[in-house]
């Protein structure tokens, strides 16, 4: 991988040779190349940057020189790749699990004996198919039973209706057709919703899926990792876990990659993090009161600078997009619920408008129409709830990346600082006439996050994939609970920073 070695070279090489060493490392990487290869290509880049390989004689003559200035490839390097370096398994689709889960879910409760025979009681317990094991499980199991039984009733109603076509006064063929349509709607909604649930299981890693289906996972753990509960309103511990997981997948420790900032820069960062002049995320931007988010805090170092890790920066950015995303989710949820209610009652209203009985006349019609009503509300509402989590997730990522933009932007810094009491006595200025626009004053409005050193650039570069990949398993796996306990506390990070900082 060329860029890995490029960064290694920039960080580790003596400053005056850094540019040359970029070329050296560019060809030395790709799966643990030797230092000899590095020196080989170092010479080739010095002589001709477009050459890919140097002659053996040139490499031999320069090997000792390059080896003296270049550490072994891989030491202290922050891995970079355009896709996660490791841990691709959690986002792989497993067709077998999908089919198995679809059968269990769609056929429930009729599929329960089959499931108990194949997988045993633990699986049914984990999937909340059995109404035992505490209030939460009982309630969820009862809801599942109720919904599933209600889903079967339109089928029974249609069978009754079709078996004995009623006379014209009771609807005749039209009554059969109505029962057929509503049964199709209910079954299609159920199939879609069950398919989504089965897809969630299908994206579990194989090992984790086996564990879920064979061991009794504690209910609290299940609930804590439920996407509709957990990933909608992300708690700080879960966010930290997901960011650490994203760092692991990318191959680096997000707590070992850090910005080195001045105290003044940290103060500016906090102002900029909590300020939006367009009102977006205004609720998150409180500078006081109970709703204020914790400020970004770094670790003071001996030379007076402050070290802020990439993980802390990503967390601060992410948290400040959470509340407005939730507000959007609530608004969408209200509209969606009302529309689902209207949709579910539409057939009844249509029948009324045509002068027919809203719930039919015959037993089959009554059974079908009455049972279809809650199903036509529940299944679309559940499907849309899953989609809303995807919207929240996309929105948080987009807005967090937007905030990351503002941190390195002179324009955003100037606009914010000119309007903030902390930095400007004439806060909330209405006219630029009140502002010092001299070149010196404009120069002083440096970006809040200065990319003025290779270490800061690298840390900024690492924040991007953290924001893009943190919690990525939720939307990819259709928001399925992971069932995985939080990882044990990581060991102290290796002293990688001294290699590149």
């Amino acid at each position: 991988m060329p860029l890995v070695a490029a960064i290694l070279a920039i960080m580790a090489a003596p400053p005056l040779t850094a540019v040359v060493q970029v070329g050296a490392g560019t060809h030395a990487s790709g799966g643990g190349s030797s230092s000899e290869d590095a020196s080989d290509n170092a010479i080739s880049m010095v002589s001709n940057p477009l050459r890919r390989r140097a002659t053996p004689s040139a490499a031999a003559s320069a090997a000792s020189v390059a080896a003296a200035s270049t550490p072994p490839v891989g030491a202290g390097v922050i891995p970079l790749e355009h896709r996660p370096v490791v841990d691709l398994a959690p986002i792989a689709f497993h067709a077998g699990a999908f089919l198995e889960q679809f059968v269990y879910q769609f056929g429930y409760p009729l599929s329960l004996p089959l499931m108990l025979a194949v997988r045993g009681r633990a699986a049914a317990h984990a999937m909340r198919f059995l109404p035992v094991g505490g209030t939460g499980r009982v309630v969820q199991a009862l809801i599942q039973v109720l919904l599933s039984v209600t889903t079967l009733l339109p089928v029974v109603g249609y069978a009754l209706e079709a078996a004995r076509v009623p006379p014209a006064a009771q609807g005749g063929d039209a009554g059969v057709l109505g029962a057929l349509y509503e049964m199709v709607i209910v079954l299609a909604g159920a199939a879609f919703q069950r398919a989504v649930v089965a897809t969630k299981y299908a994206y579990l890693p194989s090992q984790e899926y086996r564990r879920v289906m064979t061991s009794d996972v504690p209910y609290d753990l299940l609930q804590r990792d439920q996407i509709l509960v957990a990933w909608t309103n992300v708690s700080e511990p879960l966010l930290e876990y997901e960011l650490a997981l994203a760092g692991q997948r990318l191959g680096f420790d997000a707590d070992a990659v850090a910005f080195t900032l001045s105290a003044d820069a940290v103060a500016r960062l906090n102002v900029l993090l909590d300020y939006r002049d367009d009102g977006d995320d205004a609720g998150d931007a409180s500078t006081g009161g109970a709703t204020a988010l914790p400020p970004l805090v770094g670790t003071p170092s001996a030379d007076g600078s402050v070290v802020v890790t990439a993980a802390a920066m990503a967390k601060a950015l992410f948290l400040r997009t959470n509340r407005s995303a939730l507000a959007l989710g609530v608004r969408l949820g209200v509209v969606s619920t009302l529309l689902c209610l209207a949709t579910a009652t539409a057939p009844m209203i249509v029948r009324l408008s045509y002068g027919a009985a809203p719930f039919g006349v015959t037993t089959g019609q009554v059974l079908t129409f009455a049972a279809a009503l809650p199903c036509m509300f529940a299944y679309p509402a559940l499907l849309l709830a899953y989609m809303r989590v995807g919207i929240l997730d996309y929105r948080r990522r987009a807005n967090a990346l937007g905030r990351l933009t503002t941190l390195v932007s002179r324009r955003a810094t100037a606009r914010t600082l000119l309007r903030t009491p902390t930095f400007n006595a004439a806060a909330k200025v209405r006219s630029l006439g009140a502002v010092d626009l001299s070149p010196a004053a404009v120069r002083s409005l440096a970006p809040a996050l200065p990319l003025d050193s290779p270490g800061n650039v690298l840390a900024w570069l690492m924040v991007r994939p953290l924001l893009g990949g943190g919690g990525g398993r939720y939307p990819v796996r259709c928001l399925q609970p992971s069932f995985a306990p939080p990882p044990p506390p990581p060991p102290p990070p290796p002293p990688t920073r001294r290699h590149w900082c």
Partner: protein
Amino acid sequence: MLTVGVGASVVAVLLTSGNTAGALPAVVSFAVVGFVTLLQLSVHLVIMLFYGAKANAAAGEHAAQLLCRQAEARQALAAAEAAGDGHAAAAAAATVAMLDTARHLVLADADLEPVRILGLPATSGLMKTLAAGAASAASAIIAVARNLYAGRVG
């Protein structure tokens, strides 16, 4: 929009299938339920597409910002070299190189791993295309409904 198109096709078939008048409530109910559900799904997809496009657009902004910071670092490098300050020049050169690398990485990342919706990179162009398709579908639905109504009244 694809789902809307499929839904429109289904409803058009239902409305033109020559069912008896007594079956009309069932047909209309089916159409209403299908359309509203499909519409909601489509709206959710479009909202996701909007934010996906916004996230993708951030990559271009980031690359531009890195280029600006790189130009500033080059200025600092030139100034340090002119002043004969080797240490400052070396630091500036390393920063320039790193900013250049970072900018290329950001652009490559945007090219290779954009936010995708239904397998397609989320862009504002895709949104416009889907909006045009939705407008066409809506106009077709209205035309079918008007023809049906005219036929029944006539």
